[in-house]
């Protein structure tokens, strides 16, 4: 459908923010503002809200979110602008002429109080029983503005039934304040478009297509809407009660795998600054809670690199040497949100999706086979939990095909937020925990598995191995300290070319039976791309459809969530651009600190191919346990 992407969203809805440079004397077009008698000058077009931030005045907001376009619908951010008859919403007022602003006049305070009172009059919910208790923007405002009575009354019955249909997201619209952050998230950031305002006037509510339950519409379970909701109206489907039960049941052997992103973020739930890695403290806490074993998901991420990397090499070999019909570029498949996205919107490209399972599911299958064997435990008695930054992982572990061990491979997907709550419930203060290591037989993983958590990480991890395999050179000799910088950072779409050159290495033993040598790659250029947030994924897919530059790529990484897993829908709230950056720094710093930073050098991975998956990657057994197939879902809702 050509290039319609650009006029699809009205200009008024395009994300808009003018970053304020530290030194603005160098740029023209500034305008002076007087905020509460304090004079500053800001670039033309700066919003009042941003200008106030600059001078350290905080203005309450509800519908505003740093990731989203301006809405201006809640009006809580109103200020007085001299000469204007009515109060103005500061988040959506661009300063274009010198103005004088009062942010805390009697009129402003009264208006804000009224807005809060009006919201509360229709807000059904008991804070004690609400998962946002203590971290709710509405509750905070009520506290800040000293609400001590309901001026306009208070509803005493829920207006809507709770929608519990989805494995991932629970919707309780009686707590919704109609800020439409979820709507903008789902449409603008994710291009999934599950939610919109339905009805009109006092009947307006946020709903789905034909008011269907969430499980019956096209929702990719990413949970990004949860992460941006200011209240408890959206939450993840929390399995912690069932997990407690399993822990308390002596016959059950409860194991947990922890993904890299929760470890970089869970500290935030305990008051630590964003970007404080808690990996080893968490290990101790989890054991104290009662988990019998704590495993590192990164081990399975390393395994993913070997399986998915082999698959890529085989595809390339088949295409270039055997001239077979092969689907290229290969797409990564570790983000279950992305997998569901492509199943719905681009089912004709499912062959491009790597058949390798996500690390979570690979690990699940190994725990109930390899580990059960080694430890002499009946897999029927193993309860396998996955700590993930992600709500889509809850859906993924419930996919009917995810039972290649003969049991449900992963029993529960638990988000970072839910884990933090369980730890608190157990009376543990995470930051005070002594450090401890992961359990064998999977043990420590490589830095390559770790950086899966950030956008570009899977690609970087794959390249660290593939480049070394093919060229025979150390990755460090090509990229300084093996850091592949062009793949890092938060640009929506990243692209990179890696010339192979004329010198090739020896084919590693692991895949020697597939390909004799690398000569066929001499002089080739490997083209890769990375996208995060399904809106960016869509851009790449449309480009591929129209035969653009991305159709010539060999390998593309897709992550459903903005920022990759570290910005996942199960991560601590709030998640903002700065917080994502901090979490990424924590992940890359931990990677640098590790001795082993390439998946193929992980001794436990080498071992598992020796002892268990003896036929090597992409073999019969690995296909049975570590690979999967996908469903052509299509875009129509019956």
């Amino acid at each position, binding site marked *: *459908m050509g290039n319609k992407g650009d006029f699809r969203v009205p200009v008024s809805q395009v994300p808009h923010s003018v970053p304020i440079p530290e030194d603005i004397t160098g740029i023209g077009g500034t305008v002076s503002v007087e905020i509460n008698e304090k004079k500053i000058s800001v670039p033309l077009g700066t919003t009042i809200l941003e200008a106030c931030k600059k001078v350290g005045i905080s203005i309450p907001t509800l519908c505003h979110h740093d990731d989203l376009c301006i809405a201006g619908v809640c009006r809580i951010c109103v200020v007085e602008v001299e000469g204007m008859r009515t109060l103005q919403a500061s988040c959506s007022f661009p300063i274009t002429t010198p103005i004088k602003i009062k942010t805390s006049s009697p009129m402003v305070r009264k208006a804000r109080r009224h807005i809060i009172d009006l919201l509360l009059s229709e807000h059904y919910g008991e804070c004690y029983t609400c998962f946002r208790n203590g971290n709710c923007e509405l509750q905070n405002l009520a506290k800040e503005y000293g609400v001590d009575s309901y001026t306009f009354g208070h509803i005493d019955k829920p207006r809507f039934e709770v929608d519990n249909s989805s494995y991932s997201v629970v919707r309780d619209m009686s707590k919704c304040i109609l800020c439409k952050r979820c709507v903008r998230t789902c449409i603008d950031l994710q291009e999934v478009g599950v939610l919109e305002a339905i009805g009109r006037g006092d009947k307006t509510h946020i709903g789905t297509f034909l008011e269907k339950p969430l499980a019956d519409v096209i929702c990719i379970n990413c949970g990004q809407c949860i992460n941006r909701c200011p209240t408890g109206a959206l939450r993840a489907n929390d399995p912690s009660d069932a997990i407690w039960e399993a822990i308390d049941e002596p016959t059950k052997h409860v194991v947990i795998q922890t993904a890299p992103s929760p470890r970089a973020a869970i500290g935030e739930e305990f008051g630590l600054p964003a970007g404080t890695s808690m990996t080893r403290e968490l290990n101790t806490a989890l054991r104290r809670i009662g988990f019998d074993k704590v495993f590192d998901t990164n081990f399975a991420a390393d395994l993913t690199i070997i399986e998915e990397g082999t698959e890529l090499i085989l595809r390339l070999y088949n295409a270039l040497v055997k001239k077979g019909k092969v689907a290229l570029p290969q797409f990564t498949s570790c983000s279950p949100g992305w997998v569901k996205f492509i199943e719905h919107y681009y089912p004709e490209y499912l062959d491009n999706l790597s058949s390798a399972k996500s690390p979570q599911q690979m690990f699940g299958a190994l725990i109930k086979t390899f580990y059960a064997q080694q430890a002499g435990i009946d897999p029927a008695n193993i309860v396998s939990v996955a700590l993930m930054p992600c709500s889509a992982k809850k859906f993924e572990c419930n996919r009917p095909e995810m039972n290649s061990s003969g049991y449900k491979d992963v029993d529960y997907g638990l988000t970072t937020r839910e884990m933090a709550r369980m730890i608190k419930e157990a009376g543990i203060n995470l930051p005070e925990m002594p450090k401890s290591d992961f359990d064998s037989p999977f043990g420590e993983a490589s830095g390559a598995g770790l950086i899966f958590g950030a956008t570009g990480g899977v690609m970087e991890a794959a390249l660290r191995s593939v480049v070394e395999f093919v060229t025979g050179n150390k990755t460090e000799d090509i990229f300084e300290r093996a850091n592949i910088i062009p793949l890092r950072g938060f640009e929506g779409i990243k692209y990179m070319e890696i010339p192979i050159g004329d010198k090739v290495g020896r084919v590693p033993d692991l895949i020697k039976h597939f390909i004799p040598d690398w000569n066929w790659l001499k002089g080739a250029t490997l083209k890769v791309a990375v996208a995060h947030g399904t809106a960016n994924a869509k851009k790449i897919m449309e480009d591929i459809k129209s035969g653009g530059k991305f159709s010539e790529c060999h390998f593309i990484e897709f992550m459903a969530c903005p920022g990759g897993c570290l910005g996942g829908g199960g991560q601590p709230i709030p998640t903002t651009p700065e917080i994502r950056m901090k979490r990424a720094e924590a992940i890359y710093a931990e990677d640098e600190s590790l001795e082993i930073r390439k998946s193929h050098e992980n001794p436990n991975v080498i071992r598992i191919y020796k002892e268990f998956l003896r036929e090597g990657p992409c073999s019969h057994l690995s296909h049975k346990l570590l690979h999967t197939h996908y469903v052509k879902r299509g875009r129509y809702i019956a």
Partner: protein
Amino acid sequence: MLVLEKNAMTEEIEQLVEKYGRSRSSLLPILQDIQRKHKHIPDFAQQEIARLLDIHPVEIYSVITFYSFLSTTPKGKYIVRLCQTIACDMQGKEAVAKAIERELGIKFGQTTKDNKFTLEYANCVGMCDQGPAMIVNENVYTKLTPEKAIQILSELK
């Protein structure tokens, strides 16, 4: 919907998109045309429009539920909208309403069994000086009395 019906619907929408364009502002005219022809906007049509305009079905559903002249469930051939706002109310809307209900044998919000008439209330239609007023499809009738209303409807029957 049967496959054949679906194909016909897709074709129809493709033509409308051809006519009005693919931008978001084409949405309302497309919806109006479909509503006029099919007396509602079927679920499948909503999804097809979404696909062709590259927006999301829920955005279309949102628009339909916002406007009372668009609907997701089939309406009768004639949609009778009686003004319920204060000026008409004071000029005798209640009696007219009762008469129409009796004449058509349905309540407000309902459609006759033969799918001929749908009865609805509307808010002020701008005829306050000549109330009570009603709209039948695209025609406005003013200074209604129970008799006059029945007369108008029976001519349509």
